């Protein structure tokens, strides 16, 4: 047995105006789950504590709560001393009990055709990854789009795709899905991160539904424009200024001895819209002895097409890109754009390794820059954090480069999944939420490593937004200036 203390959100609509926290100290067994700690609170302190539970083994989805802000199944999550237990972010009935029914009612039911026969094995296998849902609604609680739109919720869209894949179903799942907010998903993958069954809703449901919608001509007009641009120019960004590729040679040699060599996958944003940031990054690579090879025949990675379901000519892009790097014998390809990185890592099968710039720099180790006299916070790009599992490396680099680093809560900025172009009001509303978080940190600068996030957050806050490589370069410049000053 061990003793733990936990804070539990209490709310009785009959007497309370709003929820408040109560702290309890309880005795629990080794290995006890959050649910067992709640049982102990009920049995030892307050029998009126309201919470749901049933199977106790992660199969029924009754007991989801937020522990330290993250939605989890209380019966599977280990109880921790000092944890805070709150209801899911849904209307609270009492204490930890929320109203699940309105969301469950939105989850579509199959409409089997009268002559429905058993599906074939491959059809069953396609459905199965979407069938494990226990309707715990962790994903609904965590989804950022739901905070600012009437998106029906990740699992509701999951079910639309599950039905779209079933030959027995006679419903029109695409029309339903669009009504339920198919284009509101930013593909931030927060739903997958909190799903107790690891269901990949953005990749296996949302993007696939968007593909079917595309085949029916139902893609949003703004997304169609992007696809046309990619088809015509190989780029998702219009050329309005000299591009990065036009500015640099094929090989960028480092200043000192060569410690390593990478190919650089530029991406459309760095190439066409914010080339200066990519040029800054090249300076940082030069400074750290890394030779950068930049194949000029590379094109868009296809991410804007995959995210919006416009995949008809995706394979051409993939082929061009893989050949551009493979032909030059490049073993490691570096990305600075989180979206390109996640796409190359997750949607491509490459004969080379793909690494984010922060992985490259932390693996080689960097020359320490002079610390900038600023308080900086870091925005986790969804396609870096969840798309590539990278959170520590950028923080390590940032801590080396600034006087003070402050964390802020992680949440999608609203730029991804085609939302910035397709549903700008949603992107703006999510951006405004980021602005609130940024302001709360009191930071002088927001640092990130994704051009989409960078560009979008800069639109939504008056605090300067900078790429991590730019911060490093500024640190080196400061270091050089200090050296000159002292000599």
């Amino acid at each position, binding site marked *: 047995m061990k003793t733990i203390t936990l804070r539990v959100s209490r709310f009785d609509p009959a007497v309370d105006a709003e929820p408040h926290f109560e702290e309890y100290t309880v005795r629990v067994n080794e290995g006890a789950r959050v649910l067992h700690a709640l049982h102990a609170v009920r049995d030892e302190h307050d029998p009126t504590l309201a919470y749901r539970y049933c199977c106790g083994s992660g*199969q029924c989805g009754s007991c989801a709560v937020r522990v330290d802000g993250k939605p989890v199944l209380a019966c599977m999550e280990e109880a921790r001393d000092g944890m805070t237990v709150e209801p899911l972010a849904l209307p609270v009935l009492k204490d930890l009990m929320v109203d699940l029914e309105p969301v469950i009612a939105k989850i579509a039911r199959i409409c089997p055709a009268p002559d429905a026969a058993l599906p074939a094995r491959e059809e069953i296998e396609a459905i199965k990854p979407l069938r494990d849902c226990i309707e715990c609604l962790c994903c609904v609680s965590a989804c950022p789009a739901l905070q600012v739109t009437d998106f029906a919720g990740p699992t509701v869209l999951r079910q639309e795709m599950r039905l779209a894949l*079933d030959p027995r179903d006679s419903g029109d799942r695409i029309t339903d899905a669009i009504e339920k907010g198919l284009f509101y998903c930013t593909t931030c993958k927060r739903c997958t991160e909190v799903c107790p069954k690891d269901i990949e809703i953005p990749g296996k449901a949302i993007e696939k539904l968007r593909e079917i919608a595309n085949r029916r001509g139902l893609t949003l007009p703004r997304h169609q424009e992007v696809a046309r641009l990619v088809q015509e120019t190989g780029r998702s960004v219009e050329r309005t200024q000299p591009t990065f590729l036009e500015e640099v040679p094929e090989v960028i040699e480092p200043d000192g001895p060569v410690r390593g060599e990478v190919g650089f996958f530029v991406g459309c944003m760095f190439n066409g819209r914010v080339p200066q940031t990519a040029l800054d990054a090249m300076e940082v690579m030069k400074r750290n002895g890394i030779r950068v090879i930049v194949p000029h025949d590379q094109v868009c990675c296809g991410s804007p097409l995959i995210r919006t379901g416009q995949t008809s000519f995706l394979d051409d892009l993939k082929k061009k890109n893989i050949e551009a790097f493979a032909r030059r014998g490049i073993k490691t390809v570096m990305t600075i754009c989180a979206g390109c990185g996640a796409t190359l890592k997750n949607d491509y099968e490459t004969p080379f390794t793909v690494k984010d710039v922060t992985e490259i720099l932390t693996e080689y180790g960097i020359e320490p820059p002079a610390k900038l006299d600023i308080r900086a916070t870091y925005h986790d790009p969804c396609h870096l954090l969840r798309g590539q599992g990278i959170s520590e490396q950028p923080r390590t680099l940032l801590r080396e480069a600034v006087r003070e680093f402050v964390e802020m809560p992680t949440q999608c900025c609203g730029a991804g999944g085609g939302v910035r172009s397709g549903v700008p009001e949603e992107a703006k509303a999510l951006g405004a939420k980021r602005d609130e978080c940024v302001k709360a940190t009191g930071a002088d600068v927001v640092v990130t490593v994704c051009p989409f996030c960078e560009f979008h957050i800069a639109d939504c806050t008056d605090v300067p937004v900078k790429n991590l490589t730019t911060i490093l370069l500024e640190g080196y410049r400061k270091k050089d200036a200090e050296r000159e000053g002292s000599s």
Partner: protein
Amino acid sequence: MVLYNAPTNKMHVDEIVDAHVLVVGSGGAGVRAAIEASRYGDVVMVSKTIAGKGGCTTMAEGGYNAVLRDRDSVDVHREDTLKGGAYLNDPALADALVREAPERMADLVRWGAVFDVTEDRQVAQRPFGGQRFPRTCYAGDRTGHEMIMTLLDRLDATDTHLYQEVSVVDFIKDENGAVAGAIALDRDGDVVFFRSDATVLATGGGTQVYDISTNSAAGTGDGFAMAYRAGAELIDMEMVQFHPTGAVYPYDARGRLVTEAVRGEGGLLLNARRERFMKRYDPERMELSTRDVVARAIATEVLEGRGTSRGGVYLDVTHLPAETIEARLPVMLEQFLAYGVDIRREPMEVAPTAHHIMGGLRITPECRTTIPGLFACGEVAGGVHGANRLGGNALADTQVFGKRAGEFAGKAPARSGRIDPARIDEVTRMLDGFFEGAISPVDVRKDLKLTMWNQAGIFRNAPDLRTALGHVRRLADKRLCAASTANLLECCTVRNMCTTASLIVRCALLRPENRGAHVRLDADVATDPATSPFSHTYVSLTREGIERREVAA
């Protein structure tokens, strides 16, 4: 314990709901019954939990037995079921089960269920214990979940009215002695009276009366207890299936089901000396022997000192390809990983756990109980599985008898008898009494569970059973205390648990032989299951005993 001022207002009926058929319970049997009954009239389904989240169907992992291949036959399925049940099954019920299981499987497939299928587009089947043909259909190891999601889809297409998180506490009978409906408590503790022409009881099992159990929190035996109080007769309540493989640690997760599919897929049972001990208990069938045999084998290994330090044995699948484990046993993989065990690389530790009550309400093949107006199906009914249930037969049972109960309840005539309001007052007075109670239901529950595990568990004898019965009766007499109206339900539940436990112990005392899951270490009559002179034990408010049967020598 914090003391609360009990509300002083008297309980009263806050809402009355009328239906042709009232279905109590939202597991596989209840939902199937409601679907069927809705073809005949208004149906109200009352669910203690959010529908789909309660009961054991949702948790059922392994599969659904149905004869689907030419090389298999319903005769063989029937023989397997009767033999596995130690010939205590009601033959007519067993016959209905094996004959109709394939049709009910076809219903599920037609309604959209995502069962695993073979290359040649047939529902895939795997071997389960005690069966001579691999006839267990499955959806990975989340078969029951697949079924309940499909059934709820289908239910949604009917006009059934669903009352969720509303718990029936007692039946109400009319002047003719027919069940006329039920009194229930909603989430806030408000009282609802459901009136009906016919009532289907589908509340599932109740092995939560044991300290170590696979059942969900809802498996508290409410249906057995409510029906008993209403005057129904129950049979074979001593027949409690201890599933051989429950998790052993951590403490709070002990008893959690480790599906039979693990052995079906080739899992090996090893004792602490790494011996495949099943060769001493059932060399023919080994790990795939019937559950009663495997559970006793494991318990014996542990009792005789060949168990692990945590009191279990090893269940090992590390010899199987990782992909097989990932594809066929994903829930097991996920659950053990959550507790730090990667079953692809290390063995599980398992021990028996109370799983299923084979006994229950005495029913006819039309699911009629011994009181008019009340039908029963699923685990709350007795007789289908005899003295030991085959893995995979319970899910089939829910569908076959759920459909039957729904059909015959639906066809029941309108009920005309008057309802004496005093009957309702009795229930509300009982509820009022909980506000004046003195003892926490939590304490009674804990005491009861330990008593049942220690004195009415796998190995039984008369002195222990008598001690258990005395203690259970003392617990049942305690004046339980509700801290608020929302806590009334917990008092009702613990009351039901005490009643169910006493039924189990009474029947265990009535059966003097070893039969299937029931082991009396003090049995002085040696019987062979096929020729045993004993048939069902029975228990009701007015009588109890054990039936004798004529068996050809």
